[in-house]
């Protein structure tokens, strides 16, 4: 496995360069339009997390480690989980029950981007959580590959 990944390959690098912005933009689109079109936080988050894999494939271990900070990703994931629970707790603060969509009437009409109340924000926080979480998971597994490379050399 370790021998097959040629990190300095020009074709892979160019392809990674080309596809990474697309993956980022498309993923963000899927996250933000979760309440209007097919998709949602989970799906979009995974698409964005693919960017981590693309960076790894194109540029190798050193660049990946420089670009992404493992601890920051982990803390962002935790923060996103708190954010989700916070939006769920909004219901209690507004005098209704947990998970109540209290903002539904206060935002735009149905069909607009900023509509559907906490669904939009929960979608966003889940997307954020998934992209950081899956990115962190990918980084852990890449770390294993790096150890293998060092041992075999």
């Amino acid at each position: 496995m370790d021998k097959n990944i040629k990190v300095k390959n020009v074709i892979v690098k160019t392809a990674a360069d080309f596809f990474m912005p697309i993956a980022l933009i498309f993923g963000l689109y899927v996250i933000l339009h979760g309440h209007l079109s097919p998709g949602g936080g989970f799906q979009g988050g995974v698409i964005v997390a693919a960017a981590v894999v693309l960076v790894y494939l194109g540029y190798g271990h050193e660049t990946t480690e420089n670009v992404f900070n493992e601890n920051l990703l982990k803390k962002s994931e935790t923060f996103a989980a708190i954010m989700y629970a916070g939006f769920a707790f909004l219901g209690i603060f507004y005098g209704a029950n947990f998970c109540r969509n209290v903002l539904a009437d206060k935002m735009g009409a149905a069909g607009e981007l900023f509509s559907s109340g906490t669904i939009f924000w929960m979608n966003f926080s889940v997307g954020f959580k998934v992209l950081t979480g899956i990115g962190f998971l990918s980084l852990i597994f890449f770390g294993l590959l790096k150890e293998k490379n060092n041992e075999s050399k």
Partner: protein
Amino acid sequence: MKKFMTFFSLTVILVTGLFVMKSMAVLPATYDGVAKILVDTTIERTRALNAVTAVVFDSRGYDTLGESFVLFTAISCSAAILRKGLKGR
């Protein structure tokens, strides 16, 4: 013995499963249960066009909360398992 038990139990599950599935697989052409109420009130209650997202984040939002906690737990566990452990103890 082991081989017998393997084939015996898998056959039991397969046969009863197929039997049950055959009686389950009726083609419903109408709504019943929760789905009709949910679909009819989606726009009014949640202002979301995507009914699946509305179900995921509003009426079953607590499940999704649990689901994201599953992901969090799995990632934390993976990080804990793959961390550099104590050596020689």
